[in-house]
């Protein structure tokens, strides 16, 4: 109960302060609408159905990009982390591309693939790949030698060693990389929808800006932030459920 109060009281205080400041005539009501007006705009978006379709489209692009980027990042991370030949061939290319800000490729992606969903998924997957790859690579590099020697004595199958020893041993790093990637994927879905889309939360924010509907813009921003926190927490809960040993081993 005490913990809940510590959580909820600052939020209530912030909302009340915001309402007072906004309605107190200190700032322009149109530029800084009060939370009651933002809530009304949010409800309007819910009833009109736009919020559902925007959230569905943004989330669909985000999850597809996250899935593809993470899968490729994990595979490449394990291969470059454990196999010298792969590291020699792939690491220089990856290291050259890694410092590139992922949003910088969006104009090129639009030229190549247009502005449909495939282009957005590609941009998100590209951005997601690097944090997942580098974390997996580090995880795969620092597997205790005793695990690998044990596997060498217990099985002759290198596929089994990779699947049942190298991958789980690197998993805590993989998970850290994916959590990092989730935040990056949200940036990318927003920016790629700003750059050209006909649906999605990024698109909604861009057209509310043109229509000067700051209340709707704030409502869409609020949903985007809440969605980011929700996806992150669901990921954490999911990994704890599927891999309970990670939490046990770290305590």
């Amino acid at each position, binding site marked *: 109960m005490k913990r809940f109060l510590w959580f909820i009281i600052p939020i209530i205080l912030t909302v009340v302060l915001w309402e007072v400041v906004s309605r107190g005539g200190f700032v322009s009501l149109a530029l800084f609408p009060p939370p009651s007006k933002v809530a009304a705009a949010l409800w309007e978006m819910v009833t009109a159905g736009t919020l559902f379709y925007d959230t569905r489209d943004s989330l669909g692009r985000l999850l597809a990009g996250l899935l593809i980027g993470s899968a490729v990042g994990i595979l490449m991370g394990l291969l470059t982390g454990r196999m010298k030949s792969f590291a020699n061939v792939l690491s220089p290319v990856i290291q050259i591309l890694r410092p590139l800000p992922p949003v910088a490729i969006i104009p090129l992606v639009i030229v190549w693939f247009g502005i449909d969903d495939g282009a957005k998924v590609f941009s998100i997957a590209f951005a997601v790949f690097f944090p997942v790859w580098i974390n997996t690579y580090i995880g795969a590099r620092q597997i*205790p030698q005793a695990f690998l*020697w044990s596997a060498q*004595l*217990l*099985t002759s199958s290198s596929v*089994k060693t990779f699947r049942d020893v190298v991958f789980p041993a690197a998993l805590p790093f993989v998970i850290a990389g994916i959590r990092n990637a989730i935040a990056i994927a949200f940036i990318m879905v927003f920016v790629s929808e700003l750059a050209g889309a006909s649906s999605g939360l990024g698109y909604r924010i861009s057209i509310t800006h043109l229509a000067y509907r700051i209340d709707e813009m704030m409502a869409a921003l609020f949903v985007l932030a809440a969605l980011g926190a929700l996806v992150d927490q669901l990921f954490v809960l999911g990994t704890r459920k599927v*891999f309970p040993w*990670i939490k*046990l081993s770290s305590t």
Partner: protein
Amino acid sequence: MSHISVNNVSVHYDSYCVLKGIAFEASKGEFVAIIGKSGSGKTTFLHALARFIPFAGDICAPKNIGMVFQHYAVFPWLTASENIAFGLGYKTENERAQIVREHLSLAELEEKKDKYPAELSGGQVQRIALARSLAHNPEVLLMDEPYGALDAYTRDKMQQWLLDVWATHKKTVIFVTHNIEEALFLADRVLILNHHKFTKEFTVPFARPRREEIKFTPEFNQLRKVIFEGING
């Protein structure tokens, strides 16, 4: 005939010589303890026997080797029973289940079969490590300071348990330790590894089965003193 025969084996890490032309023999079913100061090459010797590292010289040993490491190396992502079953995929499901059951019983951990290593005590994890090695029915078992991280009471219990397991399975065991008392209590023979070579060898005269009480006899303490002097001499 020797079960393990090592002739003129040397191991170098870059320009540093860890083992220098050593020779070693062990007969089938023998329990040999290797003792020596830190950095004398005890662990390196086991790694060469298991063919984990490159070496010069000849090692003639069975291919089917099991190893229990200093720091467990039990997989934290697998439960006790899954650890024991690891690498037994070539067996039928019934055979595998039978082997896992037998070795959980050997480790006295039937009740903890679904627990992860992080939920078990140090002694229990070490029993899983040994049970996992034995599940593959190795001809030779290499043990690298397996009880180094355990408290004195658990270590004593684990030594007795290991002797009981060894009496049943009769594997050839090469056991590396820092602890003279442990080496004397467990082994048929104790070898001192000093300055990159085996410098002394002692045959342990105590009859088997051995019980804790022998550690308090004058003969045991006398031999302990001789070995201590041998290591520091």
